[in-house]
């Protein structure tokens, strides 16, 4: 039966903290280690990413362009149901372009993540979708637009 857990009893918390730490460190291996083989990742204004190898490529590309300087979650709730956990969170993120040409960008958003328990008792991300609460043209949208423009300019 699905049950909302208190912050003290939240089994996902250490794994979510590991995710935030890896994202801030730009540590792709650590991020991929927290993902299921059949992960489905749905980032805004981009196509869906299926499986661990596409997920690795997505983060590698992201860190080519951006460095995450702050990543905090002021709000989250977790519902555990057997080997599945539903995590809703609100986040604040700040990123800086790796080329140093532009200023820091800040965004506020929400994520819904479905985690799956592993045979060793650890938890991994199975499905993930997020979006921004900010109006169009600021926040995440700004850097996603820029990333798409850069991708489009690259010779194929």
């Amino acid at each position, binding site marked *: 039966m699905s049950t909302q857990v208190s912050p003290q009893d939240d089994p996902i918390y250490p794994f979510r903290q590991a995710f935030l730490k890896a994202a801030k460190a730009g540590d792709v291996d650590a991020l991929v280690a927290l993902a299921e083989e059949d992960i489905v990742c749905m980032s805004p204004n981009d196509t869906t990413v299926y499986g661990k190898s596409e997920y690795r490529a997505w983060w590698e590309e992201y860190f080519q362009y951006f460095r995450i300087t702050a990543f905090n979650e002021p709000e989250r709730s977790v519902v555990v149901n057997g080997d599945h956990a539903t995590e809703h969170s609100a986040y604040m993120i700040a990123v800086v372009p790796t080329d140093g040409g532009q200023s820091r960008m800040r965004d506020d958003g929400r994520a819904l993540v479905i985690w799956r328990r592993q045979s060793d008792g650890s938890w991994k991300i199975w499905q993930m979708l997020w*979006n921004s*609460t900010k109006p169009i043209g600021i926040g995440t949208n700004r850097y996603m*637009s820029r990333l798409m423009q850069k991708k489009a300019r690259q010779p194929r």
Partner: protein
Amino acid sequence: MSKTPPAIPQERVLKASISGDVDLLLSLFTDDAIVMPPNDTTVFGKEEIRAWWQEYFSFFRVTTSVETEREVTYAGDQAFDRAAFSVTIVPQQQGARIADDIRSLTVWRLGSDGEWRISHQIWNSTKPVGSGTNRYMTRMLQKKGVRGTSS
């Protein structure tokens, strides 16, 4: 032997969206549902969900919603529903038809009455910034801003 629960009533979400039927939509959510529309604040609970959809339908009408992908995983009293849609909406007053491609992640909960209801829902667009859903959310927020200053 346990009874097999019915399938999630995903077709009712589609029917309610196309017909703009807020009461039918509301009947498909749990009292404590969390809904996270893009470029807007989080909506908590049925009353806020009602207000959100009433405002939405005062500005837009959904004319088509074609499912392009769906995977539903049942786990006890929960169902994890991942979907993609091509949608078309038209403004209630003026303006051109808007097409968008969206993905959604919806968690359903099976109530003690044997009915599935949505407990968590989030979606976003695969379209580049400035097109698709973003266009209509921008327009809606602009209208809200205009209304705010005139009151």
